[in-house]
């Protein structure tokens, strides 16, 4: 992995990203803005399942309001994230936080898709209260997003956070 990261860091596209000094701060800023959009959108969907926000609106309406923001935000996050990885492959690939973050991201995407698919169509009258299972998934989703954001910042501090477990070590 280290060899691959070193090779990638030497490719023309990576060198180009590294040579333009404002690209990485700019992309990180856009990445953080979109995290705000994606996190709050999925939080609103999860809180609706828990009955904490928009309890007067059918789940379908809440889903339709926030899911498009969540998916388009995810696309922007993926694109900016990919360019950031191309620009600093060694920093990312040798960070344990990066790999845990990617794993959690995959879980978050799959569980949100399954979640939306199974709950769409539920109306207020038909299901005033969500099942304990749905609520558990909602809480888990919030926890996964909190962990993803936390790990995103922790990538910059892999040794400090993970000590001997760090892939830098």
């Amino acid at each position, binding site marked *: 992995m280290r060899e691959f990261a070193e090779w990638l860091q030497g490719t023309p596209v990576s060198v180009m990203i*590294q040579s333009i*000094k404002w690209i*990485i*701060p*700019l992309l*990180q*800023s856009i990445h*953080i*803005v979109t*995290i*705000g*959009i994606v*996190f*709050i*959108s999925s*939080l*609103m969907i999860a809180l609706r399942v828990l009955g904490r*926000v*928009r309890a007067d*609106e059918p789940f379908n309406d809440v889903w339709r*309001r926030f899911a498009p923001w969540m998916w388009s935000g995810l696309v922007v996050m993926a694109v900016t994230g990919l360019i950031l990885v191309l620009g*600093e492959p*060694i*920093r990312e690939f040798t960070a344990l936080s990066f790999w845990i973050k990617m794993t959690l991201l995959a879980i978050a995407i799959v569980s949100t898709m399954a979640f939306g698919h199974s709950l769409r169509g539920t109306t207020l009258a038909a299901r005033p209260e969500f099942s304990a299972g749905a609520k558990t998934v909602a809480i888990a989703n919030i926890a996964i997003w*909190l962990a993803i*954001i*936390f790990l*995103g*910042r*922790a990538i*910059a*501090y892999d*040794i*400090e*956070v993970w000590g001997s477990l760090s892939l*830098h*070590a």
Partner: protein
Amino acid sequence: MNVASVVQSIEASGLAEWMRSNVKAMPIVEAIHVLCAVTVFGTILIVDLRLLGFPNLRRAFTRISDELLRLTWGAFVISVITGVIMFAPNANTYYGNWPFRLKMVALLGAGVNMAIFQFITLRSVATWDKDSRAPAAARAAGAASLLIWLTVIFLARWIGFTKGYNFAPAEDVNFSFE
């Protein structure tokens, strides 16, 4: 007592010393800061967009804002606390850093914009709360808030790239911070 000496004494404080001697503390505090900052931004975005009429005017403005206000304020308070903790160990560097100073000005701007909205514009909310377009002052407050908070996030990230790295990286670790 001038600002520089206050900054100096913050950097010499026990909190600052504790942060400098605990390597795990800074990433944890920073991560909480980012977490709360994106929560502030994301919840304010929903309120601002509603002021601008997106996605529609069917849901009452006060209903949307009341529901999110506690989350926004809670996250904002934690952002300020974590921000102070991040500032302390490196106070002189932050104080002299221009993106940091601009960020503080932008935060002040966000506060003024919110105060005007809260105490003046919002008085007439009963007439535009639901199913009717918000007045120009309210739409302007929403647009200004959106721009200011985006600016805050961009400036915040810029601080990290301009202030210098304050931990000595372990040997053979490539921190490509420029």
